């Protein structure tokens, strides 16, 4: 891996994000929605925890991550700048990884704003800090996985809408597999649940950080980013 390429791509993407209103809009909508779920806990139920945010976010991110990632590669394809990038001496994976990091940073920034809720709760009530830290850790991993899937979706089409829908469908299916236990007999359901992003998040959010869950997310990220760089290297798109 060549860090210079990763850094150059990352810096360019971060600049582009905040040069357009897109990043601000996505962040605002994200904060409005999480804020609403937060207020449910604290005002309606009068409970000092972040459970409703942690319950809903793995599903909400299925929409937010592709909204951030959809343009990252599709746009380069459409405007032809991808031709410029790949005819320079760079490794495709470095390009993809730089873009992934940029998308992930934007997501992490959004998530960082929600720390206001966590701090508020810690100040107001006697919430346990352990599950909150674990929950945030899990969200970073889960969001990272969706972001990587989003990059893969973006690498498959030069149309941003198609990229969004593809990534949304893939992440969405991975998110709802957790409910397979309701309709499928246990031994099979256990296996299918294991493929679910939300299943692993729920494990982590309980406050137990198990290496199996971490490895699951990291494998999803590495695998999808590798597929994305293959897609770029093949110069073939949907």
């Amino acid at each position, binding site marked *: 891996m060549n860090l*210079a*390429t990763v*850094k*150059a*791509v990352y*810096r*360019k993407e971060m*600049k*582009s994000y905040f*040069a*357009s209103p897109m990043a601000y809009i996505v962040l605002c909508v994200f904060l409005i929605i999480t804020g609403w779920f937060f207020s449910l806990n604290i005002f309606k139920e009068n409970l000092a925890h972040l459970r409703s945010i942690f319950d809903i976010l793995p599903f909400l991110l299925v929409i937010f991550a592709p909204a951030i990632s959809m343009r990252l590669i599709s746009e380069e394809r459409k*405007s*032809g*700048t*991808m*031709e*410029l*990038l*790949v*005819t*320079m*001496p*760079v*490794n495709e994976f470095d390009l993809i990884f730089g873009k992934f990091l940029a998308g992930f940073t934007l997501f992490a920034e959004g998530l960082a704003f929600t720390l206001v809720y966590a701090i508020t709760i810690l100040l107001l009530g006697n919430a346990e800090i352990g599950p909150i830290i674990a929950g945030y850790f899990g969200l970073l991993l889960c969001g990272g996985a969706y972001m990587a899937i989003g990059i893969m979706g973006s690498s498959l089409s030069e149309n941003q809408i198609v990229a969004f829908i593809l990534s949304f469908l893939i992440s969405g299916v991975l998110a709802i597999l957790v409910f397979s236990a309701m309709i499928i007999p246990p031994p099979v359901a256990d296996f299918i649940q294991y493929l679910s992003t939300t299943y692993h998040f729920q494990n982590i959010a309980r406050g137990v950080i198990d290496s199996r869950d971490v490895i699951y997310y990291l494998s999803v990220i590495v695998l999808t980013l590798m597929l994305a760089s293959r897609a770029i290297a093949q*110069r073939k798109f949907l």
Partner: protein
Amino acid sequence: MIEIKDLRKYYGRLPAVDGISFSVSKGEIVGFLGPNGAGKTTSMKVITSYYPPTAGTVTIEGLDVVENSLETRKRIGYLPESNPLYHDLTVYEYLSLIADIRQIPQDRRRKRIKEMCELTGIIDRVGSVIGELSKGLRQRVGLAQAMLHDPKVLILDEPTIGLDPNQIIEIRELIRRLGKEKTLILSTHILPEVQATCNRVIIIHRGKLVADGTPDQLQHQFEGQPVIDLYVQGEGTDVLSAYRSIPGIEKAEQMKEPEPNIRHIRLVVSKGSDPRPGIYRLCVDKGWTLYEMSRRIQSLENIFHQLTQVDPALVKEHAA
């Protein structure tokens, strides 16, 4: 420097480049000529490692563009046909990004960007956002991008497209200057451009190489019989046998009268002879008034036209 051997590239079953071989040595400026869809851009995309070839090899300084693509890509500066740019960056930001990716050492970076901007005449626009620049200026930014890392090989796909006549002259001048130390391949379908800038012309048609040589060589090789157009007035100018008596003239033909009483005679001249003094003497002897006499030699334009005309047999075969 660049060695292309039996290069083939198929899009599905459709051949875009169908067995092209040639080599380019250092310091050559090669004009890649061909009608739209002849395979110029595709060949360039294979040379720059954008597309892998279906068959055949391309090597740059002995390095294969598929196997050693990281190395060959370092040696190439490429301006794609569409001149893609990041429209939301300024010229300086854009060139810095390219410098970052090209890994131009930090201490040389600013100097190099400045030099390239001066060379392409965009130095006073470095702070402008690319999206707000005119097409001609953007083309210069694209050229600056291609030359930023001082590559040995420059591949320029239609570098003068969208420029105004003055800018075209400037860019041609720049290309000629660059050609002294670099190897250049540029594609175009503007013929005067090739004559003005290139010291070698390669004409491709339907994915095949149909001509290769200096503009002069091509002229020589494909020269048909020269033709003299004669505009005369007087008694007996329509007796064609009079012309045929002049040595060196093979055929005389009366064309449509351009003006009343002036005859337009087309004379086909045998190769290597110049019958113009004879024609003059004939006119004087017969008391004709000579309005105009002009000799036409096959221009590059005619050669291009002749070589790239669609073969009717091929069309039929294709339709069947």
